[in-house]
């Protein structure tokens, strides 16, 4: 299995802050399946830039507040 992408996210907290929004509600809002939202939230899958912007738009925050690059990550050769 490939290593998880060097990106963390705060989707779980943002969902909590938005009235305990469910994964399904978020998925419906961005046109994805609940399973894809779960995979993004658990950092198993890095979404496209468009999907990342859509998620940020749903929560009304900048994309950097949703996804954070792990600066200490060293790319594998």
């Amino acid at each position, binding site marked *: 299995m490939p290593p998880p992408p060097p990106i963390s996210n705060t989707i779980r907290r943002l969902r909590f802050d938005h009235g305990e929004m469910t994964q399904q509600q978020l998925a419906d809002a961005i046109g994805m*399946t609940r399973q*894809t939202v779960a995979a993004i939230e658990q950092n198993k*899958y890095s979404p496209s830039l468009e999907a990342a912007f859509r998620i940020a738009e749903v929560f009304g925050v900048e994309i950097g507040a949703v996804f954070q690059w792990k600066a200490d990550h060293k790319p594998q050769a």
Partner: protein
Amino acid sequence: MTMREKVAWISVVASLATFGWYFWSVWADYSVRMFDGDALFWRFVWCTVLAIAIMLPASLLAAWLGKQQFDPPADELEVRIEAFSNRIGLVLLEFALVGIVLLSKTITDIARADFQVDPVGATAIMLVNLVLFATAFAAVVREITIIIQYRRYA
């Protein structure tokens, strides 16, 4: 479970049941060195019809029970999973077809030795069924790859 994963499960089970039986019957005919091309053709047609008759209602039932769309538009992760699985299936099919071509001389020799009444017909039947087997095998592996990918991301 997404609808696409459910369809993949249904497809694998239905294909293994129907085409598994078909290829087992071809092997049984080969074991007694007696091929009937006409019977095999119609057996294959019936197996295909049966597979569709199982898959379509089962998928509709799965969608209804899960209150899901029958054929929802794929999102980016699903597109990625299907692209990867299609690639695996295609590579497997390519290798299998090349293998069958390389085996054709051996198949002709078997037909000459074991089917002396009609070696040409037996060669054609064996080659066609090997191609069908390679195609069905690649399709099943593709569906299994889809399931594995979905489980990995679950």
